[in-house]
C-alpha cells in the first residue's frame, strides 16, 4: 500500500498547489459535489474503444472513465503510478508489472492482470482494426499478431505478454526501451472488463470503465452524460456530480452558449473570439501550453530538397519566418514561437531545451537571403506550402508565413500557399509522397516524453516521419537513448539527437500550441492538462 499513500500524498499536494484548498477532509470544500456541469464536445471520429481512439474528443471520455497503470500528472505531465503497484526491470527489456489490489470496474468486476493482458492483446490484433495498434509494437510478438507487411496474421495474442498471477504479469519487449513504463499512461493501455469482449456492441453503446466517472447515458452524435462513480477506489475522485458532454457543430456556437449562460465549459475557444475573450471572461479564460508543436516538413524523397547544400535553403527559410509577429497577430498569443523540436510541457528535466534551435529559429532576413542563395536558391524558384483547408484555419498562418518569407527574400513570388480540400486528401498526398515542397505538419504528443517528440517523427521510416527524413547519426543516438536506463542520461542523448536534427534542419519548428478554455462563473478549479483536455474530476461546481 506504500504506492497508494504516496499517490494520495501527490494528489493532495497537487490539489493544494492548484487551489490552496484543504486536503483530507473528504469531499470538496466549497463546491457542491453533487452538481453537474456541462461541457462542449465534438463527435468522436472512431468507435469509442481505448485502442481505437486517436483524437482529443474521444480521448476526453476515455480520460474520465478509465484509469491505467500510470497517470500523467495534470500539472507537470510526470507519469505517476495509478493502478501499478510496481513495474520492475533489470535490463530495460523485460518488465514485471504488479497491479494494485482493490480496484474494480464500475460494473463490479475486479481489475486484474488479465484485464490488462486481454485489452492489450485485443488492441494489437490486426483483425480488430484498432487505429492505435502500433502502441503495442514494442511488445514481443507484435509482428505475428499484426503483420505490417500484409502477411497472414499468425497469432491472436502477443507472445511477450504473460499473466503470472492474479495481480502480476510480465512484458517482454522486442528491443530495449527504458522509458516504456512511462508510456503506460496512454489510454490505449487501459484495462478492459469482460463485458467488452462478451457483448462488444452493447459496450460500445455504453462504455464501462474503471475511472472516476461512469457513463449514464450516451446518445451518439449529440450528448454523453457522465456521472460520478461513488465507489471509485482511486484518490482522484470526482469533485462534482458529473459532466454532460454536449456535441456542438461549431465551436462558435458553443462559445455563444457559454456567453448566454447555457454551457459551463468550452475547451476550444474559437479563433474569431480570441480578441474578445479576455473582455468576456476575464480570468475565466485559460491559455496554457499543451504538448503540441507545429512544424513545416520537407519532402526528402524529392531530389530538389535533398541535395548537398539544401540544408542551407531549409535553414534560410526558417530564418525568414517572423514567428513572433505571426503568433502575436494571427494567434493572439495562443502559440509560442518554437525554439526547439519538443514542447515546454516536458519541462527542463523532461527534455525541453529553450533555444536549442539557436539562431536558425530567429528572424533574420539578411542572413536568410544569404543562406538561400548559398544553398543554390529555392528549388524551382518558388516554395509552395501545402496544407488542408477544411479545418483549423491553416490558410491564415500559411499566408502569413509566406508573406514573411517573401518579404525577407525580397521576392513576391518566393512562397505561396497550396491548399488541399480535405484532411483525408492531404494525408493521401503525404502517404503517396506527392509533396513537392514544404507542408504543414503538427504533432500532438501521446505521452509527455522527449522520445515521443523525436522518434515517431524523425527516426528512419518511423510511423509519422512524413518527410522521410533519414539520418544515421540521429537514429543511432535515439537507439542509445532508449537503451539508457538512467533517465537524465537518456534525455541528454535525445537532445544530442535533436541537435543533429537542427544542423540538418530536418523540419522547421514553427510554434508551440496552447490549450485554451473558457468557463462560467459556476465553476472553479478548472485546469487543462498537458494534452489540452480539462481535468474534469478536479472541477468544482457552485
Amino acid at each position, binding site marked *: 500500500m506504500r504506492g497508494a499513500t504516496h499517490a494520495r500524498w501527490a494528489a493532495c499536494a497537487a490539489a493544494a498547489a492548484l487551489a490552496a484548498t484543504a486536503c483530507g477532509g473528504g469531499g470538496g470544500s466549497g463546491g457542491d459535489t453533487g452538481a453537474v456541469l456541462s461541457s462542449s464536445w465534438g463527435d468522436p471520429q472512431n468507435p469509442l474503444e481505448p485502442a481505437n481512439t486517436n483524437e482529443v474528443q474521444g480521448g476526453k471520455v476515455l480520460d474520465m472513465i478509465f484509469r491505467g497503470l500510470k497517470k500523467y500528472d495534470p500539472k507537470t505531465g510526470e507519469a505517476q503510478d495509478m493502478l501499478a503497484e510496481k513495474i520492475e526491470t533489470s535490463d530495460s527489456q523485460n518488465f514485471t508489472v504488479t497491479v494494485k489490489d482493490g480496484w474494480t470496474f464500475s460494473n463490479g468486476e475486479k481489475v486484474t492482470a488479465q484485464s490488462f493482458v486481454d485489452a492489450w492483446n485485443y488492441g494489437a490484433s490486426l483483425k480488430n482494426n484498432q487505429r492505435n495498434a502500433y502502441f503495442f509494437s514494442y511488445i514481443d510478438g507484435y509482428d505475428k499478431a499484426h503483420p505490417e507487411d500484409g502477411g497472414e496474421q499468425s497469432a491472436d495474442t502477443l507472445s511477450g505478454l504473460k499473466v503470472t498471477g492474479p495481480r502480476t504479469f510480465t512484458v517482454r519487449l522486442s528491443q530495449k526501451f527504458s522509458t516504456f513504463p512511462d508510456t503506460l499512461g496512454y489510454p490505449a493501455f487501459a484495462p478492459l472488463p469482460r463485458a467488452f469482449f462478451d457483448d462488444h456492441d452493447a459496450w460500445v453503446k455504453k462504455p464501462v470503465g474503471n475511472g472516476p466517472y461512469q457513463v449514464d447515458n450516451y446518445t451518439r452524435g449529440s450528448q454523453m452524460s457522465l456521472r460520478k462513480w461513488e465507489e471509485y477506489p482511486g484518490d482522484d475522485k470526482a469533485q462534482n456530480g458529473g459532466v454532460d458532454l454536449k456535441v456542438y457543430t461549431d465551436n462558435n456556437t458553443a462559445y455563444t452558449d457559454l456567453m448566454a449562460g447555457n454551457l459551463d465549459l468550452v475547451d476550444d475557444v474559437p479563433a474569431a473570439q480570441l480578441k474578445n475573450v479576455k473582455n468576456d471572461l476575464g480570468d475565466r479564460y485559460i491559455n496554457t501550453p499543451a504538448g503540441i508543436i507545429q512544424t513545416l516538413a520537407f519532402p526528402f524523397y524529392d531530389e530538389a530538397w535533398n541535395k548537398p547544400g539544401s540544408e542551407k535553403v531549409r535553414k534560410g527559410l526558417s530564418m525568414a519566418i517572423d514567428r513572433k509577429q505571426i503568433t502575436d497577430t494571427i494567434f493572439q498569443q495562443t502559440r509560442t514561437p518554437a525554439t526547439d523540436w519538443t514542447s515546454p510541457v516536458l519541462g527542463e528535466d523532461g527534455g525541453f531545451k529553450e533555444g536549442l534551435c539557436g539562431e536558425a529559429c530567429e528572424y533574420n532576413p539578411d542572413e536568410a537571403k544569404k543562406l538561400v542563395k548559398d544553398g543554390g536558391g529555392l528549388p524551382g524558384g518558388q516554395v509552395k506550402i501545402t496544407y488542408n483547408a477544411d479545418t483549423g484555419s491553416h490558410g491564415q498562418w500559411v499566408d502569413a508565413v509566406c508573406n514573411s518569407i517573401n518579404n525577407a527574400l525580397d521576392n513576391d513570388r518566393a512562397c505561396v500557399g497550396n491548399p488541399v480540400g480535405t*484532411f483525408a486528401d492531404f494525408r493521401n498526398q503525404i502517404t503517396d509522397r506527392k509533396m513537392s515542397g514544404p507542408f504543414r505538419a503538427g504533432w500532438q504528443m501521446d505521452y509527455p516524453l522527449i522520445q515521443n517528440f523525436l522518434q515517431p517523427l524523425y527516426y528512419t521510416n518511423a510511423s509519422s516521419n512524413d518527410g522521410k527524413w533519414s539520418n544515421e547519426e540521429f537514429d543511432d543516438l535515439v537507439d542509445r537513448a532508449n537503451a539508457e536506463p538512467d533517465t537524465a542520461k537518456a534525455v541528454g542523448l535525445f537532445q544530442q539527437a535533436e541537435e543533429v536534427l537542427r544542423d540538418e534542419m530536418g523540419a522547421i519548428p514553427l510554434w508551440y500550441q496552447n490549450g485554451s478554455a473558457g468557463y462560467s462563473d459556476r465553476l472553479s478549479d478548472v485546469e487543462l492538462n498537458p494534452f489540452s483536455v480539462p481535468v474534469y474530476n478536479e472541477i468544482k461546481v457552485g
Partner: protein
Amino acid sequence: MGRYVVRRLLQMIPVFIGATLLIFLMVNVMGDPVAGLCGDRECDPATAAQLRKEFGLDKPVWQQYLTYMGNVFTGDFGTAFNGQPVTELMGTAFPVTIRLTIVAILFEIVVGIVLGVVTGLRRGRPVDTGVLLLTLVVISVPTFVTGLLLQLLLGVEWGWIDPAVSSEAAFGELIVPGLVLASVSLAYVTRLTRTSIAENRRSDYVRTAVAKGLPRHRVITRHLLRNSLIPVVTFIGTDIGALMGGAIVTERIFNIHGVGYQLYQGILRQNTQTVVGFVTVLVLVFLVANLLVDLLYAVLDPRIRYA
C-alpha cells in the same frame, strides 16, 4: 391521371441512378478516405488495408457502386466511419431536419403568400414599396449574417431563446432557425405571389367574378389566388428539397444535428457511405416533391389535364 403518375415514377429510375452514380464518383475522386482516419499520422499499412476491406474500398469503383446499390434496395445504407449504421444516422438526422423544413415552409406559405397578396392588390402603394424594400434587404443579406445576428440579439443580448438548439430539437426551439432558413425563399415567394396576383387581377375571369357580384374575399381566394399560385407552388415544391439539403449553414449556427450537419461531417471525413446515403434520400425527396407539384397543378387549374 394514373398513367401519368406511373410514367413519372418510371422516369424517376434513371434520374435516381444517374444522381447516385454521380455523387458516388465525386466522393470517390476525392481520394482514399482511410488516410484521414488515423489523425495526423499514417495508419500502419496492415490496419489501413483491413479498414479498406471492411468498408469495401479495395474493390473497383463500379463494383463498389453495384454492391452499394444492391444493398440500398434491401435497406442497408452501410456503416459510417464511427461504426454507426448510416440508417441510424438518418433516423436521428431526418426527423430533426423535417421539423425544421416544416417550420420554414410554413413561414414561406403563411407569411410569404399573405405579404404577396397584400402587395399584389396594393401595387405602388406605400405597403408595396415597404415590403419590396424589405425583401430586397432579406435577399441580399447572406443567411449566416441573419442567423448570427438573430442568435446574438435574441439568444445572448435579450435572452428570449437559447442560442443553441438542444438535441431533442422540438418545434418551439426551431422557430427562429426556421425563420432564418426560410428568409430568402420567403422573400422570393412574396415577390412571385405579388407579380402573379398583380397580373391576374386584370384577367377576364376575375372581371367576370367581380361583375357577378361575388364577395371580395371569395374573388380573391377562389378565383384570383388559386390561379396565381401555380408559379408559387412550383417554387415551394422545389424549395423543400433545397431547404433540407441546404440547411448546412443554419444547422451549424444553431447547433442542429440534422441532415446538413451529417452531410458536412461526411464530406469532411470523405465518408462515401454517409454522403451517398443522405444524398440518395434527398434525391428521392426532390423527385417526389416535383411529382406532387405537377399533380397540384391539375387541382389548382382544372384546364390542366394529365393523360
